[in-house]
């Protein structure tokens, strides 16, 4: 059975003190995975039901919208500006080989609209707001504030999660639209002012090749990613265990899971949208 063990701890006399069987560990991980998927599904069902239940919490919604939306404008503008400028710098050299520098606006615009803007926005907001969401709800969990709400007949999912999920759903597309505009502005500056591309040609190619559907598909993706981030991060907050260390661990897991989750979802949505919007495949 030696091959089935992944770790063996022995004392100085060579006697085995601890064996961790690989099969058992894999089994535990699989059970844990399905348990988490099951709990998350139940959490989502409760969330959907809570969304349609009165009272509608406009105050909490706008508070969260301000935190996720307004307070993130700077970071989203800065990151999308950098992405637009760097991407242009890289792509313009490649296109120079084909004397097609004028196409750079269209290439950056298309990539930003369909993929880069929603993904960059989502990843930045997961880092900034997702981790905070988990930590805030997780701290409330370990200090029994969620239990206190329950004793007052207030559903914590209705009070805490629904406003966050809806605020993310609406804020993500708005910030993605901003990322599109700022990213293109960065691209324009690099292409036109630093690399001498004709401004008329830049804009002409951009409007010819970038369709409103491209922008629209990116905004839909952003909205779905917003929903996913808020639901996943709140779920991990609700499942926080044991004090400050547990809060940190929950925040890390939430950030990793939602980042991987939105990338997987992005692939699936990209495939679907190519079929729906562009009749490809």
């Amino acid at each position, binding site marked *: 059975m030696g091959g089935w063990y992944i770790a063996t701890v022995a004392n100085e006399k060579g006697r085995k003190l601890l064996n961790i069987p690989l099969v058992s560990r894999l089994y535990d991980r699989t059970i844990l995975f399905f348990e988490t998927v099951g709990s998350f599904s139940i959490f989502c069902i409760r969330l959907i039901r809570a969304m349609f239940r009165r009272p509608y919490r406009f105050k909490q919604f706008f508070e969260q919208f301000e935190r996720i939306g307004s307070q993130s404008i700077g970071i989203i503008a800065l990151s999308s500006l950098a992405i637009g400028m760097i991407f242009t710098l890289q792509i313009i050299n490649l296109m120079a080989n084909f004397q097609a520098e004028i196409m750079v606006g269209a290439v950056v615009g298309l990539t930003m609209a369909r993929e880069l803007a929603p993904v960059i926005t989502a990843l930045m907001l997961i880092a900034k707001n997702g981790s905070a969401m988990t930590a805030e709800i997780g701290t409330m969990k370990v200090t029994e504030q969620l239990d206190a709400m329950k004793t*007052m007949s207030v559903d914590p999912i209705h009070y805490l999660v629904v406003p966050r999920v809806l605020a993310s759903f609406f804020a993500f597309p708005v910030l993605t639209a901003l990322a599109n505009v700022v990213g293109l502005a960065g691209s324009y500056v690099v292409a036109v002012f630093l690399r001498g591309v004709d401004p008329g040609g830049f804009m002409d190619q951009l409007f010819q090749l970038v369709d409103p559907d491209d922008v629209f598909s990116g905004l839909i993706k952003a909205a779905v990613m917003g929903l996913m981030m808020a639901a996943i991060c709140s779920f991990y907050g609700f499942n926080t265990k044991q004090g400050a260390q547990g809060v940190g661990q929950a925040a890390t897991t939430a950030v990793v899971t939602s980042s991987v989750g939105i990338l997987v979802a992005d692939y699936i949505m990209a495939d679907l949208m190519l079929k729906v919007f562009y009749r490809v495949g």
Partner: protein
Amino acid sequence: MEEIVVVEGLKKRFGANVVLDGVDIAFPEKKITSIIGQSGSGKSVLIKHVIGIMKPDAGTVYYRGEDIFRATKHRQRQIRHKFAYLFQNSALFDSLTVEQNIAFPLIESLGIKDKDVIKRTVSEKLEWVGLPEVGKVFPSELSGGMRKRIGLARTLAMQPEVLLFDEPTTGLDPVLAESINDLIINVNREFAITCVLITHDIQATFRISDYIGFLYDGQIKAKGTPSEVVRSDHPVLQRFISNSFNELEV
């Protein structure tokens, strides 16, 4: 003596760990009942079943003869409004000010919308717990004793019939602990609220309680008035009592 809450055959286990193994106890109306027991004996778990934030594996809890766990969701919510719970660490919402904390159950639980009524009730409760000046302060700026008082003010704002206290004096110095115990007596006398305490502060328990239950090994091993409980021949309870009162003599 009418019993407002009756716990019957309550069982709860977490994995292989049996915490409650058929608890039977009744809480008389408008009296102070204390549940005593060792740390980890399941006192908090018991009280969380009474307020309905945990569901039992077997057994049930009756409120005025009505099975809480068999009631409809709507009725459960109505019954829950009759209860309030003061958590061990007060569980104040740290993103809200003290005023907002006390106003929270008024708005969210009782559905009061009139701002004047809310403001007046908040001031009354703050006045009652002797902290009229801390309304605009956040809970993180308060001491442990002050947090307990604000927690009590928040529970009183719910106008409960039954008030559950989870270790109300744990972590407080003797003077503060005494003042919290006095507040519990005042709550019971002034507002005629049934008080249920879980504690391992034996001396205070015998001073303020009308009835006592001793939880051990997942069951209530002794119950009755303080004078009845003190005569119990349960060895652990006897050790519990003698240790506490010996400490007092020292």
